[in-house]
């Protein structure tokens, strides 16, 4: 089921076009990774979807309702984790959650319970009465996430939620995102960190210059740009390797020997790793194997011609 459907969205800032007829569907229960270089239009897209800014053209359908981004009832079903840490330093962690829970209309015992659950969820129960100004960067980020969870949103939008934190906190946050998905929350996740998307996203959308340039699962995206596979087999005795048999395998384009390493280049999707390995093992011991496969970083580079992590500070 489609939870949010964006059709032909156009957003201009004076002469500059930020979103150029963007189409995007978010399906219930998925983690959709939104990738794009700085200035690609990710944040603008999120702001349009959340009803924070108006757009010039197009339609956004939320929870099956058209033109509903500014309806308070729909906003109650959505949560936003901002790129900035938007918590109050004067209040305690618990009070911060109580504030956002109150803004989303929770009251009394229900509010108390949800605040407790959210603190537990992000592992800050023991710090409930402390002010965030005593927190590490990672703890602040976790509190920032918890602020978007008290009202149990159906659709959670996370805008670069792990910027500038230590690996331990990042892992904690990624685990939390996976747990949220298991609980049935749909998540739109933007980040500069390719490995995060690769590890948590069920589907990826790449945007550049205000347009969606590619979408699919990580494997699909890789497949689209992958033209060949490379296998490197480090062997004990290279002189005994039956090179011609390897060359005869289906899809193999080239076999080279360099030092003690046999390099096999095949067509994409040929799946020659097992076959090549058994041939090599017949005549020699194997010291090591490496299969070179493009990753999401390569996909991104191929499609946009840009490195994703250039100028991380730019919020757009």
């Amino acid at each position, binding site marked *: 089921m489609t939870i949010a459907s964006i059709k032909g969205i156009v957003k201009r800032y004076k002469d500059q076009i930020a979103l150029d007829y963007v189409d995007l569907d978010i399906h219930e229960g998925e983690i959709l990774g939104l990738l794009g270089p700085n200035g690609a239009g990710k944040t603008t897209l999120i702001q349009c979807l*959340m009803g924070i*800014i108006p757009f010039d053209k197009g339609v956004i359908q939320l929870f099956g309702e058209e033109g509903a981004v500014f309806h*308070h009832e729909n906003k109650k079903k959505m949560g*936003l984790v901002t790129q900035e840490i*938007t918590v109050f330093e004067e209040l305690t962690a618990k009070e911060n959650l109580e504030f956002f829970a109150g803004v989303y*209309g929770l009251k009394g015992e229900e509010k108390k319970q949800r605040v407790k659950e959210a603190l537990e969820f992000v592992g800050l129960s023991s710090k409930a009465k402390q002010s965030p100004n005593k927190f590490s960067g990672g703890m602040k980020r976790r509190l920032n996430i918890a*602020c978007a969870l008290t009202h149990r949103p159906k659709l959670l939008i996370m805008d670069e939620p792990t910027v500038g934190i230590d690996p331990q906190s990042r892992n904690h946050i990624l685990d939390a995102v996976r747990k949220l998905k298991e609980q049935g929350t749909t998540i739109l996740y933007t980040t500069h960190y390719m490995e995060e998307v690769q590890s948590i996203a069920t589907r990826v959308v790449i945007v550049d210059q205000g347009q969606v340039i590619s979408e699919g699962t990580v494997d699909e995206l890789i497949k689209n740009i992958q033209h060949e596979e490379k296998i490197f087999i480090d062997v004990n005795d290279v002189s005994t390797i039956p090179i011609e048999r390897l060359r005869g395998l289906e899809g193999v384009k080239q076999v080279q020997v360099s030092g003690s390493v046999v390099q096999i280049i095949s067509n994409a999707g040929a799946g020659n790793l097992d076959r090549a390995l058994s041939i090599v093992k017949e005549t020699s011991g194997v010291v090591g194997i490496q299969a070179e496969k493009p990753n999401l970083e390569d996909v991104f580079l191929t499609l946009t011609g840009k490195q994703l992590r250039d100028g991380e500070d730019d919020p757009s």
Partner: protein
Amino acid sequence: MTIFIFALKRILRDKTNVLFLTLFPIAAIFLPLAQEGWPLLPLGYQYFGVLLLFVSIRLTGIMIEDRQKGVVKRLAAAPISHFNYLWQNLLAFSVIMVIQTVIVIIGGHVYGHELYGPWNLAILYIVFTFTSISISLAWNSLYRSKESSFLIFMAVIVLMALLGGILFPMEMMPEAFQRIAVIFPTYWLSEGIEWIVLGEDRGDFLFINGVLLLYALFFLIIGSIRRIS
């Protein structure tokens, strides 16, 4: 009323705020009487308007902070209107400043100051509270940083107090300055103080408060235009 309650909490958690909010009114009560017939009220009561402007820029600063930190953007994604956010914050600032005014009036009365019409003085200060909160709101909307807004507004307060006849009698000013003084809300505050001591026609007092409320409305509109960025 979540925003209202938490605005009060945030203001009162700040130790500097608490210091300003308690020490200044106490100081105003205990400042000595005026010499040689001017000002007409005890010094603390003549200068209380300056204190109100000062406190209001300090309190409204939390709204710049909200904008700076992205809280306003986050709230724009929540089921609450910007109008709701605005009026609940303004209500919190007003409640604090009205309490401060009441303390100063009751304190002065108990201390034995001659306040002429304490009720009228309370009304004038409360109306000026709304004006100063609106001016601060509009002023803050021009700035991205709380610190620069606060520092420059300090100079503006002194200028408004000088030209509006709060710090010196209007008669000591050059004629041209006296003519332009009417554009400053502080002029109407000092006119109000003069009416409380010397005035007779109730209509004049209503007119003075009406002008101050118009200023409040004008600056409120200006101040509410800027939202997220």
